[in-house]
C-alpha cells in the first residue's frame, strides 16, 4: 500500500487551520457573551495565551497511567473526528481520509473521547470527577439517541453512508439542503447539537461553578492544555459535521468559516438566553422533544 504524503501534509495543515479557527471562534463567542453582559470581555488572543500558559506550567503530578491517557484519548477523539471528515466539498486535498461509510465511524468517534475522559478522570480519584463523569455520560447518551436517529433518517433519505455523498446530494442551491428537504431530522439533530457543544442549557457537566468544573477537576498544566486544544478542534469539526449533513457543505474555506461560525453561534445564542438545566431535566428533555422529532423523521420517510 502506498502512502499519500500529500494527503498527510494537507491534513496537518487543515488541522492547524481548524485549531486556530476554533480558538478564535471561542474567543469571539466569549467576547459576544461579555458584550451581552455589558462588559468589554477578554482580549481576542486570550485562548492562545491560556494555551501557552497551560503548556508552560512547570510542575505536574500524575495519578497513574490512565490519568495520562485520558486527555490523549480525548485528543485522539477530536483529531480522529477531523481526519475522517471531508472539510471542503469538491476538493481532492481537503477531504482528509473520508471514505464510504465514514458517518458510522464519526458517530463512534464522538463518543470515544468522552469514554477516554471518563477513564482518565476516574483515576484522578477526585469525587467531583466521578460526579462529573456520571453526569456527562448520561447526558451524552441522551444526546446520541436523537442524533443517531437523524443520521439514520439521512442515510435512508440519500441511500448512502458517506458524508461526501450526502454533501453532493445537497448541491445546487439552498433548496436542496437537508434542513429544507428533511426538516424533522435536521431539527432533531440541531437540538442535540446544543448538548454536544455544551453551552448554557446543557453545560452542567463542565460549568466552572457547578461541582467544580466536572470531569477535568484534577487536570492541570499540559493535561488541561491538551484538553483545551481538543475542545477547540472538536467544536469546529462538529460544526463542520452539521454543516456537511444539513447545510450543504462548503465549497471553500471562507464558506466553511462562515457556516461553522453560524452553526456554533446557534448554540451560543441559545446559551445566552436560557438558564442551565439540571442533569435529570436535560436528559428528559433530550429524550422528549428531539427524540420524538427524530422518530417522526424516520416514520415520514
Amino acid at each position, binding site marked *: 500500500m502506498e502512502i499519500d504524503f500529500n494527503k498527510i501534509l494537507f491534513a496537518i495543515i487543515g488541522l492547524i487551520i481548524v485549531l486556530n479557527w476554533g480558538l478564535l471562534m471561542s474567543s469571539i463567542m466569549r467576547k459576544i457573551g461579555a458584550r451581552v453582559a455589558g462588559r*468589554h470581555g477578554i482580549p481576542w488572543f486570550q485562548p492562545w495565551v491560556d494555551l501557552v500558559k497551560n503548556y508552560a506550567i512547570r510542575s505536574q503530578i500524575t495519578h497513574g497511567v490512565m490519568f495520562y491517557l485520558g486527555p490523549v484519548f480525548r485528543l485522539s477523539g477530536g483529531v480522529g473526528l477531523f481526519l475522517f471528515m471531508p472539510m471542503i466539498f469538491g476538493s481532492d486535498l481537503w477531504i482528509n481520509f473520508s471514505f464510504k461509510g465514514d458517518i458510522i465511524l464519526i458517530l463512534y468517534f464522538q463518543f470515544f473521547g468522552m469514554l477516554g475522559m471518563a477513564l482518565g478522570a476516574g483515576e484522578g480519584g477526585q469525587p467531583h470527577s466521578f460526579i462529573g463523569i456520571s453526569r456527562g455520560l448520561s447526558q451524552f447518551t441522551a444526546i446520541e439517541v436523537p442524533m443517531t436517529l437523524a443520521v439514520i433518517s439521512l442515510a435512508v433519505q440519500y441511500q448512502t453512508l458517506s458524508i461526501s455523498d450526502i454533501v453532493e446530494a445537497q448541491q445546487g442551491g439552498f433548496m436542496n439542503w437537508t434542513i429544507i428537504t428533511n426538516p424533522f431530522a435536521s431539527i432533531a439533530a440541531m437540538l442535540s447539537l446544543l448538548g454536544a457543544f455544551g453551552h448554557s442549557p446543557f453545560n452542567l457537566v463542565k460549568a466552572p461553578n457547578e461541582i467544580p468544573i466536572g470531569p477535568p477537576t484534577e487536570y492541570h498544566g499540559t493535561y*488541561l492544555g491538551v484538553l483545551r486544544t481538543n475542545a477547540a478542534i472538536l467544536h469546529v469539526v462538529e460544526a463542520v459535521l452539521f454543516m456537511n449533513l444539513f447545510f450543504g457543505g462548503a465549497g471553500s474555506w471562507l464558506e466553511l468559516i462562515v457556516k461553522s461560525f453560524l452553526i456554533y453561534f446557534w448554540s451560543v445564542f441559545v446559551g445566552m438566553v436560557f438558564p442551565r438545566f439540571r442533569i435529570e431535566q436535560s436528559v428528559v428533555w433530550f429524550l422528549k422533544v428531539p427524540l420524538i422529532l427524530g422518530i417522526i423523521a424516520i416514520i415520514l420517510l
Partner: protein
Amino acid sequence: MTNDKLNKNQIEDVSKFFAPENKKKNVETPDGQIIEVNPLSDYFSEARPKVHEPNSSKVVETFLNWARAESLWVLGFGTGCGSIEIPPLLTPRFDAFRFGVQMRPTPRQSNVIIISGYLAVKTLKRVIRSYEQMQNPKYVLALGSCTINGGMYFDSYNTINRLDKYIPVDVYVAGCMPRPEALLAGFMKLKELIKAGKAENANKYVENFDEYKANQKKIIKDWNMPDYNW
C-alpha cells in the same frame, strides 16, 4: 531517617486528631491475610516538593512569563471580609477579564490565590492545602491589612498576624478593605513582577520548606495531613 521522609514521631503525636478513616487499622486482603494500613503514609505521598528552575533560555522564559502574566487564573477561595470584594471584579464596572484574570474553581488549574482578609488558624490550614495543590508558577496576592500585620485583629487569639511567615506572598494590597480598584492595581503589580521574572515564590517556598512548615505547625496543632499536600 532520611530527609525525604516525614518524621514519624510527629505523626504519632497528633494521631488523636485524625478522622476515623485516617487512623491505623487492620485490613483483611481477599486472600485472608491481615495487613496493617496506616492511611497517612500508605495512601498519601510523602515526597518533598522539588525546585523547578526557570527555562534556561532567556527568550523562551520571557515569552512564557508574558503568557503567565496575561493569563492569571484565580482560585475561587475567599477568606474573611475581602472575599466579597472579588465578585465585583467580574461585573461590567471593573471587568477583570480585560486583563486576563479569570476565576477557576479548582486549585489544580489556578495560578493565583487571593488571601482576602483576616485568616483564622482553621482557615490557614485549608489555605495551605489549597496552596500546595496548585502547580509550580503560583502566586499569592494578600489583601487587606489583616494579612500584613493582623489589622484590627492583631490581638485576636485565632487570626494570624503575618501571612508571609506561613506562605510566601508576592503582592500585598493594603487597605481595610481595599476596593476592587486596589485589587486590580494589585493584579497589575503582580503582572509586572511576573514579566520581570521576579515572581518565583513557589520555588522560595520549596527552598525554605522546613522553616515554613515549622511556622505552620507551631499554630496548627492538629496537623492531621501529610507534610506536603500533593
